[in-house]
């Protein structure tokens, strides 16, 4: 069964992706401003939908409102995908995204009700990035490029590029966990610092392999430049965020510069993870997983689903 391009669904996915990025910013602002428990109750805020938007309440309640909007948009995405899409796996992905955003809401509530204990903030932070990756996947899978026929690109190297991309994505996600652990005061900084160098190695290794094996492929070149650029920026942001924390360790409150740097570092981490996932998806779309399939002149979208 060949897939049909639905421009409306694709554009809606892109809009949801952008809105989810805004939600990541809103969430990071809550943590950086120490506002996670500014609203002690859930799901209402001080027993109402319109609490006084002062101090930390502004960040926490705004985050909840944006999250609710994302939830509704994800419901629309799931319903639309089920009605329009012929590819079962894309339908199930949209449902998985819906399940993730519902679970994310519950985790957010538990984070508040359990006073940030039991690793809830870390789980909430990590699932946010998984959800962002899932919506990025929906945007990619519904794109005209993905649905159109792509020339099969043989991979003569070992291990396969798929393995490189998967290991890289896993390393980046582990780094996300370590960063969330430090940010929510469950872990010291040193694992996250070590993780940064590990990710630097996996990203460099993946990018070099992409260049070496698929240097002439436009999409792989773009992917390589993207992950190198995003991670390079992320590494420098990490150094800047840590330095700003050290320089203001005696500050009586979160300072604007520290808040800005930590928030940008957090959301760029989400971008890094999403880009790493995108590289995985590109590899599976364009490169056959076996030498036999590489004999086919073109890979249709159905061949990989």
């Amino acid at each position, binding site marked *: 069964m060949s897939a049909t391009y639905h421009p409306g669904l694709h554009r809606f996915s892109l809009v949801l992706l952008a809105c989810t990025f805004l939600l990541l910013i809103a969430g990071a602002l809550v943590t950086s*401003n*120490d*506002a*996670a*428990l*500014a*609203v*002690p*109750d859930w799901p209402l805020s*001080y027993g109402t939908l319109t*609490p*006084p938007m*002062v*101090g*930390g*309440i*502004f960040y*926490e309640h705004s985050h909840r409102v944006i999250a609710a909007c994302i939830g509704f948009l994800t419901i629309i995405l799931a319903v639309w995908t089920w009605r329009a899409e012929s590819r079962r796996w894309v339908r199930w992905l949209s449902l998985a995204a819906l399940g993730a955003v519902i679970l994310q809401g519950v985790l957010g509530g538990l984070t508040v009700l*359990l*006073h940030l*204990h*039991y690793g809830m903030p870390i789980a909430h932070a990590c699932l946010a990035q998984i959800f962002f990756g899932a919506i990025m996947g929906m945007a990619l899978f519904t794109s005209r490029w993905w649905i159109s026929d792509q020339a099969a690109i043989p991979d003569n190297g*070992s*291990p*396969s590029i798929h*393995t490189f991309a998967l*290991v890289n994505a*896993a390393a980046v996600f*582990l780094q996300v*966990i*370590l960063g969330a*652990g430090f940010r929510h*005061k*469950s*872990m*010291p900084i*040193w*694992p996250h610092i070590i993780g940064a160098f590990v990710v630097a190695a996996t990203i460099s290794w993946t990018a070099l392999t992409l260049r070496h094996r698929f240097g002439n492929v436009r999409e792989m070149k773009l992917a390589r430049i993207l992950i190198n650029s995003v991670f390079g920026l992320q590494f420098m942001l990490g150094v800047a965020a840590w330095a700003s924390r050290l320089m203001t360790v*005696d*500050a*009586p*409150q*979160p300072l604007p510069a520290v808040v800005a740097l930590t928030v940008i570092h957090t959301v760029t981490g989400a971008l890094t993870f999403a880009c790493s996932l995108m590289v995985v998806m590109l590899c599976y779309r364009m490169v056959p997983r076996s030498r036999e399939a590489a004999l086919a002149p073109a890979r249709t979208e159905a061949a990989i689903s």
Partner: protein
Amino acid sequence: MSCGKKIGNFRRLALLAIAAALSFLAAACGNQENSGKKIPPERSSAPPANVDPATTGSVSGVVRLEGPVPPARKIIMSGDAACASAGQEPPVSQEVVADAQGNLANVVIYVKGGIGYFSFAIPTTPVEINQQGCMYAPHVAAVMAGQTVTFHNSDKTIHNIHSQPKNNPSWNRSQSPGAPAIEEFFAREEIAIPVMCNVHPWMRSYLAVFDHPYFAVSGPGGAFEIRNLPPGTYTLEAWHEKYGTLRQPLVVSAKEAAKVSFVFRSDAAAGR
């Protein structure tokens, strides 16, 4: 080496890496578990203390800071207009409060050892903490385990009161302007419990909780006094939120007013 064997080796390496990563995560994780469940005041199985008031003594003294006093850091209250207009001018951090002579306030002085295994009556008078000018007053307080701590909101804005103990259940309560006082207690000894407001993140106070009544908090001139101390040999400790803990032995004779002093060094900042 064949291609298949290379792939197999790499897969084994990848599995080892995943196992190592999981172990790494486990090692890096701290232990921050806190049930959050309310614990009622514990009735100690220890025999009640038999203190003869005819023989008790006291210990008093001054806490000083040696070295340059760090400048009070300005607090930005622009996030809440009610705070910006009601607060002290200019609002500054209360982390280090010392006078021109270096006498250090907000230090908790307490008997650490030598009391023996006794239970003490829990005071019925609550310790009052007020939220005024979007700051806690007092900044540091000391109570007995099970003693009521009453929080008041004198501000025209909403506060949340979030305790962050390690040895007691945590709680987080909201308090609107004019709302009734909030009463809480801590069942277990802990020195000291940070209490903060997440609506106004500069608001921070500390509550030191003791199983016995032999404690004091130094005032603006660094002075403190602990009364009704039975004669004996003790260990006296002084805790400051930034400079950590000092300790010294103390011997109190019957009806003696012992004198001690503590001197913190301003270059010995403790981790908060």
